[in-house]
């Protein structure tokens, strides 16, 4: 088979994977957000939409609610205000949904797949370092890169397209011919522009450390050394804050501002157009989580899982090695990447339901007077640290490499402990205190006082 054809087919398959994941996640996140917020606020959440087969009702733990919502949106009236700009009014939801999906094109969700060695031997192992041999002859299968678009300015492409989201919201606000919409659009424009600056500058530290703009090489660097969150902890916080602000979710949901400007730029949208904005918001959430994972949480890497298999090491000392077939490694990487993204989405939903909204001047102050200088400081500190690292002796550099492995161990142990904690927690039965008992427990009175509490 010709190499170009293989590349084309691979690209289509990768598009299907990414699009499938993003659109599924957007629907699942709607459910996740509602159920999770219910659990946080001691409620049950949506769980009643059902499919009846015979006499049995299947509610699928509420997963049918997004489907019901989508069906409702399809059949609702698509209202365009009489004096609205019809073209722009229809264009805005498309822009705000398409731009974040396009961002996913440069995010690598697996390491480079060496098709040629897999064709020769299905259970082939590949060496840890170096990439696959390029297609030399017409019959050699080309290596398949981990992202859809293999461009060398990955992160700049992301910044370019992230700006398109602003255009969608702003156009929506302007074209609706509604004052609330206009206010919302203005807020969206100024907020997103402000935080775009902080977001861009907070990544610069990352680029300096990794020495590349390509997201797949960033992931590879993190796999060989340690995760970006340990190299750039400050940058991680700045980027996370800016990324949440870019998704326009609470505490940064001022463009929608339900209490003061009704729903901001969404006021005049109904039916499927509103649903597109809504989906776009969740796609943005997925995309921002993806970027956090790719830049700071090791991308598709799990500690000690390399291209050739599992290698437990501490500095130069290799403790244990187990070779794994190339296909297995790639499959694990894809699963781990999507798992990490889901986890970060989950964490972001927590932030949304924990932190109250900013006031608008506080928002601008945070963006321009705190995040922007902080990210500049981060750049300078990173530069100084890098120069110091380069000038230091080999022994110091080795110490830092060992420290990197130490962080890898930390991640591994922390995740194992987390999983075990959840498992043990699920096994032990729950204990509910009545309101009186709870108050007594808060005051940490002795058991005698607890026994006096009225029995329920």
């Amino acid at each position: 088979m010709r190499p170009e054809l293989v590349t084309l087919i691979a690209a289509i398959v990768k598009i299907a994977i990414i699009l499938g994941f993003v659109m599924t996640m957007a629907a699942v996140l709607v459910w996740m957000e509602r159920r999770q917020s219910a659990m946080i606020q001691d409620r049950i959440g949506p769980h009643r939409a059902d499919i009846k087969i015979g006499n049995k009702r299947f509610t699928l733990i509420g997963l049918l609610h997004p489907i019901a919502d989508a069906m409702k949106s399809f059949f609702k009236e698509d209202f365009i205000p009489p004096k609205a700009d019809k073209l722009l009014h229809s264009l805005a939801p498309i822009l705000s949904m398409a731009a974040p999906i396009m961002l996913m094109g440069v995010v690598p969700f697996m390491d480079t797949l060496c098709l040629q060695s897999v064709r020769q031997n299905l259970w082939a192992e590949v060496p840890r370092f170096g990439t696959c041999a390029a297609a030399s002859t017409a019959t050699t299968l080309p290596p398949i890169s981990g992202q859809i678009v293999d461009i060398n300015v990955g992160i700049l492409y992301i910044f370019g397209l992230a700006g398109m989201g602003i255009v969608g919201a702003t156009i929506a606000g302007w074209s609706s011919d509604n004052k609330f919409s206009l206010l919302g659009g203005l807020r969206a424009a100024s907020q997103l522009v402000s935080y775009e600056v902080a977001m861009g500058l907070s990544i610069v530290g990352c680029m300096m450390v990794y020495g590349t703009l390509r997201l797949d090489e960033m992931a590879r660097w993190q796999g060989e050394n340690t995760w970006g969150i340990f190299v750039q902890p400050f940058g991680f916080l700045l980027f996370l804050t800016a990324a949440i602000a870019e998704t326009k979710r609470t505490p940064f949901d001022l463009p929608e501002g339900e209490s003061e400007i009704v729903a901001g730029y969404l006021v005049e949208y109904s039916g499927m157009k509103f649903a597109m904005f809504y989906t776009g918001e969740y796609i943005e959430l997925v995309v921002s989580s993806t970027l956090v994972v790719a830049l700071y949480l090791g991308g598709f890497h799990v500690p000690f899982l390399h291209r050739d298999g599992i290698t437990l090491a501490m500095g130069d000392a290799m403790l244990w090695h187990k070779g794994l077939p190339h296909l297995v490694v790639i499959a694990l990487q894809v699963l781990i990447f999507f798992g990490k993204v889901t986890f970060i989405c989950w964490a972001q939903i927590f932030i949304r339901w924990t932190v109250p909204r900013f006031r608008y001047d506080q928002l601008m102050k945070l963006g321009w007077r705190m995040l922007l200088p902080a990210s500049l400081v981060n750049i300078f500190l990173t530069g100084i640290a890098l120069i110091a690292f380069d000038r230091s002796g080999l022994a110091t550099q080795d110490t830092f490499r060992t420290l990197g492995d130490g962080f890898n161990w930390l991640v591994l142990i922390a995740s194992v402990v987390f999983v075990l904690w959840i498992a043990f927690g699920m096994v032990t039965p729950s204990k509910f205190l009545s309101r009186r008992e709870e108050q007594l427990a808060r005051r940490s009175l002795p058991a005698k006082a607890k026994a006096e509490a009225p029995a329920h």
Partner: protein
Amino acid sequence: MAQPLVGKIQYDRVKGKTVPRPTHTASEQAYFVEVVKGLGLTMRHFFKNTKSMLRGERPDAVKDPLSEGITTLAYPEQKKVYPKRFRGIHRLTLRSDGSPRCVACLCCSTACPAQCIYIEAGEYPEGDARRGYERYPVKFVIDELRCIFCGYCVEACPCDAIRMDTGRHPVPYDSREQFIYGKDMLMSLTSVEGKQVAENPRHEPPDPTHPGIDRLKGAH
């Protein structure tokens, strides 16, 4: 100070309470520590509630509504019991033979401030022991849309024939016709305990304890 804005009120005499400006500690101003604390709180609730939902262990929402954890009532399936004196939908109490206790005296419909009760009285057939002594309702209709649930009909009734102890609140229907409860409907309803009769006994005309019969067959 500037001149007072309104009338002759002397503002310097108004005693105000000086509210101190809120002070923030360094960790509060840094914002991050407080966010982490808040996340801890929400996560505690999340993990606890998720676990109890997955394990199917929830506090009894009816008996222990103030407990910690999820105490939401799944309404149509789970219901909160109304207090004993709650005035719900009416019911017509029955005699031991299944006929209504109502004697069609029209006291309830007279007392009704909303005029929602309509009664058509009828005589018992020839040969019935109650004929000539009391009547029975051929029609007994309550328009539940007009009813204001004041309970005057219950108080007016001399025979304990109408009660509001069903423990049910008015149910929503699709059309107005469905809100008009007829005699059969009212007789079929039960009290909270499931009873269709009233507690106090009724002395029927054939009974020897019936005072009316005694008077009829008396010496005079």
